[in-house]
């Protein structure tokens, strides 16, 4: 098992956002986490990546047998977790290339692999650029600075391609993308998908799941997974909206 989340409770600024999440992810699987705005989807993705402001109050998370919550965020990345941000951050003056070379070599050092020299790194970059049809100019520009929304998202997937994670968390990667960019981003993810890694897609809409087809769909509502199913669940949600799942859950909450 790659990832196992047990009864995870998380507070953000004193307010409980996740109220007992249980989830198992195996290698080779694609999971989609769906839900209305404010249900805690992004919080789940960020807490797995190690965002410190998010306080875990209860529960456990195991990643490849290790207690994930003991690891600082950089070590989680070095262990193979990658978060594609919903809002990728701009870092003025730091080139994409510089960021990626630093990141990749930190990860390789952690794993006891030799650090790549400039030539090795460059040839790796070139091969990965093709995967996401990234404009060559973007890799020498400052990280995300002045990038369009679509370029930022492509850049996230490009970084994922270079860092080659075992567990990729895609946080609303489809938001702000036009249909062409969506297709490129999704095909990049599909090419990176293998039997040795897993992808968790966090999304509000079903449309991304037309391209990245999930094995499991989970519906998050008010901090809990209220429904799980296969890819047909996503289609059902698309058709009916989120209202029909809200009612029973609210009732449960009233009862509890």
């Amino acid at each position, binding site marked *: 098992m790659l990832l196992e989340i047990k009864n995870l409770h998380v507070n953000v600024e004193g307010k409980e956002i996740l109220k007992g999440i249980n989830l198992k992810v195996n290698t080779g699987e694609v999971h989609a986490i769906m839900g209305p705005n404010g249900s805690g989807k992004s919080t789940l993705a960020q807490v797995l990546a190690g965002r*410190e*402001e998010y306080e875990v109050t209860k529960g456990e998370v195991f990643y490849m047998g290790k207690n994930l919550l003991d690891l600082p965020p*950089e070590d*989680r990345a070095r262990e193979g977790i990658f978060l594609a*941000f919903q809002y990728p951050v701009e870092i003025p003056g730091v080139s994409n290339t510089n*960021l990626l070379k*630093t990141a990749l070599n930190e990860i390789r050092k952690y794993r006891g692999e030799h650090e790549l020299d400039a030539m090795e790194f460059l040839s790796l970059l070139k091969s990965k650029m093709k995967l996401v049809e990234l404009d060559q100019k973007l890799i020498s520009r400052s990280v995300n600075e002045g990038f369009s929304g679509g370029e930022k998202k492509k850049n996230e997937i490009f970084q994922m391609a270079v*860092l080659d994670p075992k567990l990729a968390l895609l946080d609303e990667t489809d938001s702000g993308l036009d249909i062409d960019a969506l297709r490129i981003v999704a095909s990049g993810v599909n090419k990176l998908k293998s039997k040795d890694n897993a992808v968790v897609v966090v999304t509000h809409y079903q449309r991304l799941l037309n391209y990245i087809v999930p094995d499991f769909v989970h519906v998050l509502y008010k901090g809990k997974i209220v429904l799980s199913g296969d890819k047909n669940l996503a289609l059902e949600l698309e058709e009916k909206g989120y209202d029909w799942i809200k009612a029973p859950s609210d009732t449960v909450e009233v009862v509890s």
Partner: protein
Amino acid sequence: MSVTETSKIEELANKEYKYGFVTDIETESLPKGLNDEIIGKLSAIKKEPPFMLEWRLKAYRHWLTMEEPHWSNVKYSPINYQDLSYYSAPKKKPQLNSLDEVDPELVRTFEKLGISLEEQKRLSGVAVDAVFDSVSVATTFKEKLSELGIIFCSMSEAIQNHSDLVQKYLGSVVPYTDNFFASLNSAVFSDGSFVYIPKGVRCPMELSTYFRINAANTGQFERTLIIADEGAYVSYLEGCTAPMRDENQLHAAVVELVALENAEIKYSTIQNWYAGDKEGKGGIFNFVTKRGACRGKNSKISWTQVETGSAITWKYPSCILLGDNSIGEFYSVALTNHYQQADTGTKMIHLGKNTRSTIISKGISAGFSNNSYRGLVKIVKKAENARNFSQCDSLLLGDKCGAHTFPYLEINNPSAQIEHEATTSKIGEDQIFYLNSRGIATEDAINLIVNGYCKEVFKELPMEFAVEATKLLSVSLEGSVG
């Protein structure tokens, strides 16, 4: 910043100053205090011609009429100028032909700093005039330079061997009446560097001096004079580190640059003197006057500085743009941490027609430090078509430090075009987490962000200096942020 981050800042603040050690070389010093007799002795030790002693005494007498200025945005306890020793030199005054003759202890000191002379000589083709305390003890590449007619020597040697040039230019940019610390320097300066590039000569290598303050309680008064004759070019590098000391050490240097017609001088500084400990105890007072005069048409002077050291930094490398079409540039990174204070910037004085100036200033404040940019752009009435572009950015690390900007503009000609941009920002938790999530630890993440922020200035530095500056920033930030 969050609580966790602030505590990380405090945790990392416990790291020690990397370059804090004392070299065990015996020093020869004059007794503490300042009077005519001390100045006479100093001049005699240095075997100076009479005009020098006369000039020093004039400066001293003028200094006595002056009061220590206090307009800058820095605070320090009063300095007792009679409690300082105004001269200290390594006791064994070696006459050296090669590096092999340098005191091995000194060589080891340089090696600890990662600036071994051998390496410099071998790798980078840099001619190094190393100033250890106040006397030059090693000079290299002199022969190669002299073939081109370039003079690169200590100020003491220049006073003895090139007194005509010294007499003509010394004090011509920064007169001995200029300001309190410049007057003091004129009276008691012990050594420094002298460069003369003859007409039409392009200096083929970067000229470099490493300064180092060593003896306790010895004020260091360096004097540097660089003259680029018509059509000449020179790039000069100045780098400094100092050993750890409890007492504050006063450093009041003067640097004068003269660029004649079509000449260009590029002056780069890395300043990393001991900044005091994390409680703000000790550290160097760096009160420096640096000024360049673009005397001739189409001349250019460019200052680039990376200031990370000193308890207090107080300096404004300036350009007097006298020649028509002359250009002045100022690129600065000033980093303050713990209780360091910096009040630094530039003055661009536009006197000639079509003169242009550029100011790029990047302040970084961490810990409890205070960092001020202070800059003057002055355009006189007859300076037609003057242009200035200023960009002053401040970056705050943590929430206990301060950043201030004091831009002064005096525009007396309506044809002037002036642009001023200023920003203040904080390193965001978002940026740090983003880099963390890519496998980069927080300290490295901050280094990456800060170096990115300084990129515009670093690209103005000569290659080997840029590498050193990047390293230095990381070392300086080690004690600051998490």
